[in-house]
């Protein structure tokens, strides 16, 4: 990788201030996307600001009806929170492998906005709110496009607020090598209605209104049987064609509904 200057920030304020004072900086969270990217010389930041020592990013809190998870909380830590939102814990436990989950963080994942990442599906599927050092952003507005979010230059994700669903589940068809989602679908019956969020299929996570309307009438897998999303604009790579991905969206959504109905996700916070 190209050379850079390294800083270890002790607080959110210090991290943001450092970011503003460097020429072309980047935040370093778990580093499990950033460091491989640097190793391939696909990026050349002048400075890396390590967030690993900022305790304020590692808190979790359960309030009435919602789970707030700090941006610096690792995937394995979320995977162990199965008592709160099991669908979210299950999703976190399926990211990468055990060692990746010991380093990768919630904030790092969503700030990167990989089109095949799992967390964006949970954020949009649960109607989460992304909290930054300066504002709150609805997850529906946070993920903009391929590797593009609503974050401004230097803006730092500090936590995510996940409302507890009545029922929810995530199912993904993983790439057998990377475990990234070829297609992943998060289905949730929330206090504000049905939400179906799809990752892996398009440039960015997206909702499927037809499926949400069908589930509002009948929360069963059969309600989705005849709904097929258009393949226009879906990802096309060596792993799967747009046609195949469109097919998988319906299959994964149906499986998610089956799992949501079978799970104990009705537990209220």
């Amino acid at each position, binding site marked *: *990788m*190209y*050379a*850079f*200057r*390294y800083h*270890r920030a002790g607080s959110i304020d210090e991290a943001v201030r450092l970011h503003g004072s460097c020429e072309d900086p980047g935040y*370093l969270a778990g*580093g*499990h996307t950033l*460091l*491989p990217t*640097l*190793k391939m010389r696909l990026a050349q930041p002048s400075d*890396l600001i*390590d967030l*690993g020592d900022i305790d304020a990013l590692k808190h979790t809190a359960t309030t009435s009806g919602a789970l707030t998870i700090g941006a610096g909380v690792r995937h*394995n830590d979320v995977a162990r929170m199965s008592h709160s939102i099991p669908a979210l814990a299950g999703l976190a436990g399926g990211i*990468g*492998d*055990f*060692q*990746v989950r*010991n*380093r990768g963080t919630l904030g790092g994942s969503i700030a990167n906005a990989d089109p095949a990442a799992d967390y964006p599906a949970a954020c949009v599927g649960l109607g989460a709110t992304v909290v930054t050092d300066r504002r709150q952003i609805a997850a529906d507005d946070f993920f903009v496009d391929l590797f593009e979010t609503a974050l401004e230059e230097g803006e730092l994700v500090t936590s995510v607020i996940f409302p507890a669903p009545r029922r929810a589940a995530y199912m993904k068809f993983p790439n057998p*090598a*990377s*475990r990234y989602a070829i297609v992943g679908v998060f289905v949730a019956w929330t206090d504000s209605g049905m939400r179906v969020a799809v990752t892996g299929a398009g440039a960015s996570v997206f909702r499927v209104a037809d499926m949400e309307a069908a589930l509002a009438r009948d929360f069963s897998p059969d309600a989705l049987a005849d709904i097929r999303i258009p393949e226009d604009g879906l990802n096309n790579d060596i792993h799967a064609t747009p046609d195949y991905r469109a097919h998988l969206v319906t299959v994964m959504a149906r499986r998610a509904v089956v799992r949501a109905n079978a799970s104990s996700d009705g537990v209220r916070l």
Partner: protein
Amino acid sequence: MTITVSMTVNGEERSGVCEERTLLVTFLRETLRLTGTHVGCDTSQCGACVVHLDGDSVKACTILAVQAAGRDVTTIEGIADGDTLHPMQQAFHENHGLQCGFCTPGMIMSALDLLKHNPSPTEREIRDHLEGNFCRCTGYHNIVRSIAAAADMMAPGEG
């Protein structure tokens, strides 16, 4: 730019000079000359470089040495008690849990983290846990058997 990085490695305070972009695995192997930790793929997939950082198994090819500064690192060299092998090492020895041996350090460090969280895993749980550790000899069967045997040996009240 060169920097001096200090950390606790296998219970000893160690320091060395490296670059800010130096990976932890490179620091361990080339600066501290602890070559038991291997580099297989260098892309955070194969698990040959697994070490423990503050008690958690991690891939040392995807962490900067400077990120580990001031922290506690355990490598494969740090688990035996003098000439007495760690039970996990002994189990790999007795169950022929290695063929060429290249993946073995990572397998052992990864398996120890499994038993920390799940002292008596099922075969399915062992296989799931090894998702990030590749054996290109495909010797998984005896690796899984070794870890199960180690779990028995390390169980409270057992040998």
